[in-house]
């Protein structure tokens, strides 16, 4: 399947897949390294926006070039992840704020205890 791919499609797919995976890894590193919960929430969105976009585009280009017809169903994943990530994070931050206020713990400005 890979062998009968035109050279330009292979190069573009390689660049897009590598960029997407590297961006996702940087986002996950941020999830591990940053100090407080509200800072940590920002980092994985690198993976959900640029990572998903790049890898879905690479998949579209690869299957369109190798099957000689346009394959667009990866757009479904990209649109779905783009729509659902803000909803998820808003509900999660509301829950975190609720829990912090309940315990009179000013987590939004300070660092974690650990």
């Amino acid at each position, binding site marked *: 399947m890979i062998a009968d791919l035109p*050279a330009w499609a292979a190069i573009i797919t390689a660049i897009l897949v590598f960029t997407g995976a590297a961006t996702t890894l940087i986002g996950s590193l941020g999830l591990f390294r940053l100090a407080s919960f509200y800072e940590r929430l920002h980092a994985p969105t690198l993976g959900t926006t640029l990572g998903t976009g790049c890898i879905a585009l690479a998949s579209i280009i690869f299957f369109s070039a190798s099957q000689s017809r346009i394959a667009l169903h990866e757009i479904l994943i990209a649109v779905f992840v783009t729509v659902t990530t803000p909803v998820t994070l808003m509900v999660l931050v509301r829950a975190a704020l609720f829990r912090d206020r309940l315990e009179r713990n000013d987590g939004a400005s300070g660092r974690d205890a*650990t």
Partner: protein
Amino acid sequence: MSIVILTWSLTLAKIFLSLAMGIAVLRILRGPRAQDRVSGMDTLYVNAMLLLLTFGIASGSTLYFEAALIVALLGFVGTVALAKFLLRGEVIE
């Protein structure tokens, strides 16, 4: 030549995404509070979905796409349900 570049790029991408999944698991295990663990699980789902898409490109099979779609769907539902549980103490009011 370009096929060699594509193969190496796919291998590196699989290693990177597996590392990202491992880091998300570390955050789930370490996370000082419950909301940290929930955000780590959300990241784990997204990374697993991207890894499935990369496997689909590497094997040339469209079967992985459907698995990736289902993982994205269930990840969203699971994270929202856990966040609702943290907010109110019950999922369906």
